[in-house]
């Protein structure tokens, strides 16, 4: 690349990143503890996203809420991460996520808590 040439055009990248909105279904498994469902919904409502479909129901030992949201790619990423940051969210998945996006490591990577050693974290994950 010639010296001084930008690595990319941020505006163009931003446009691609935001992209067009499309309706997507999200399936969020969670432990039905106080406020968890509200926190899940709040991640959508704080972005002023309409919630045309919300269906919460028991799923095996846990619960699952299905949401339909009109979102762009950037919002999908943000929602995934924000949902995973909720204490009792177990797993997030969705339909119609663009190729590869659902498997982006950082979306599904709930961080090991700092107060827990890696060994403890591994042990908890294996439990």
């Amino acid at each position, binding site marked *: 690349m010639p010296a001084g040439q930008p690595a990319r055009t941020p505006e163009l*990248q931003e446009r691609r990143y935001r992209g067009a909105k499309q309706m997507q279904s999200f399936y969020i498994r969670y*432990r039905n503890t106080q406020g968890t469902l509200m926190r899940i919904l*709040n991640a959508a409502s704080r972005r002023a996203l309409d919630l045309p479909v919300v269906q919460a129901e028991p799923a095996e030992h846990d619960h699952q809420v299905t949401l339909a949201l009109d979102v762009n790619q950037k919002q999908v990423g943000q929602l995934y991460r924000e949902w995973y940051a909720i204490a009792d969210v177990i797993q997030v998945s969705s339909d119609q996520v663009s190729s590869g996006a659902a498997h982006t*490591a950082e979306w599904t*990577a709930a961080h090991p808590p*700092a107060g827990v050693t890696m060994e403890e974290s591994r042990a*908890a*994950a294996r439990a």
Partner: protein
Amino acid sequence: MHKGADIVLQCLRAEGVELVFGYPGGAIMPLYDALEGSGVRHILTRHEQGAVFAAEGYARVTGQVGVAMATSGPGATNLVTGIADAKMDSVPLVCITGQVRSALIGTDAFQETDVFGVTLSLTKWSRLVRTIDEIPEAIAEGFYWARSGRPGPVVIDIPTDMLKAKKEFSGPVKFTPHARPADAKADGGFTDTSFTTKIAALLQQASKPVALVGAGAKLSGAIPELRRLLDHLNIPTFATVHGLGAVPPESPYYLGMVGMHGTRAANTALNESDLLMVFGARLDDRVTGEPTRFAPHAKIVHFEIDPAQLDRVRPCEVSVIGNLADTIPSFQAELRQHSLPDFSGWRAVACGAERAELDPRGLAQPTIRFLDELFSRLPESSVVIADVGQHQMWAAQRYRSSSPRGFITSGGLGAMGFALPAAVGVQLAKPDTCVLCVSGDGGFQMNIQELATVRRLGLPVKMVIIDNKYLGMVRQWQQLFYQRNYAETDLSDNPDFVEIAKAYKIHSFRLNEDAMREFPVSNETGDEIDRFLRSPEPELLVFDCAPEANVFPMVPAGAALSEMLLEEEPTQ
């Protein structure tokens, strides 16, 4: 048999809590009744907001969980600003609120507020206790979430009848988080160190790399690891307001604070960089300026513990999720296997004296000279707490601390009134440390009642008010961007702060700008500042600041960092 209130206090002790900050009221009276002899010391503030900010100050300076208590209804809602502040700035905080008795919940009873609902979007975790049996688990889990990962606020709301109820109590419990598939993935991904080779490759390709350090550096406890890495990289480095102190200011590659009021050198280097390495920073708008024009030539490598913060501004080339204490050593081990390109030419340009100077107009400002005098005379290991506004940015620009927890302020939320109560918490945590609280005349009045707390406890807090008789930062924006329409920012009818302090039996005095016109300052002024800083008693110094003094450099809202103003431009 133990009362619920006793169980709460025993569980707090089990979590290592020695101090709580609070204000009593009806629903939480049983907990106050049980305080004596519990081993938990209660600090009475004069407002619940004072309590929560004091708990934050304690937490910010120690890294331990701060605890605030309040009653139901208005007591609980008065905590909300502090809870939001703790969320934004990643402060471990547990708020315990009394609630109306269980049978009255949902009836709009006297002093009933749905504090669980009110704080739902501000907390990491919260619990409305339904039975006395839940108390030990709620407290253990609350403390776990407050401390874990990216620290944050927790609310535990306890109905008054649960505090009065009795049960057999076998002792506090320990909380173990549930495993989830994502944790296993994260764990697996975490031990996968392929990110290190990717970053090493990016460094090999880079010609203008820079490093940005945020609050995560101190929160992770990874300061030694980070400093070793930065010494090794030896690339231009700057910090967010919460990253100040993480990098020794005398480091030859350090350029100071970045962002809206960052140094010219830092903002310029960031704008020119082709590789930006971020260590524990959220990259909020005060750091980035206009996001689409942030670091326009740079690829971004983001080390961050909170996945929710990634790609918020722009997608990163490499995201490294985890605690810096774990990820930095992995990265540095990889780096040792490579020889870094020679960045000395770039470093010489970015760190050159030409860029390093602050705006000469700023240096000439008496207020900045005053802060320089004050900071230069501070004892070692002092802690400076800044409120919110112009003085906050002046202090952030001028205080050069090597202590990661040496500069404390409300950064993300920008909550005026933070500094005085936070200083109470800091001084209680560090009784032998010089604690300097720098406020503006607007912010100081937002929690001025905490002078009573300072006096009651005899805390030797040193309080400074930079008094420009305006809401200075708002006025500055009005001057620069609203054609000097100083709408409702004039505080020229301020009370006499010296007299107010005297009413609280706190020694106070005034300095005006004339004292700073000489350089160096007269012996008399210098001695007065020294005496003030070393007094064993609380003291208040009111510095009369020019009403229209401004903070520069400044990046206007919506502008890129490259468009910073170095001095005032004529109003359009």
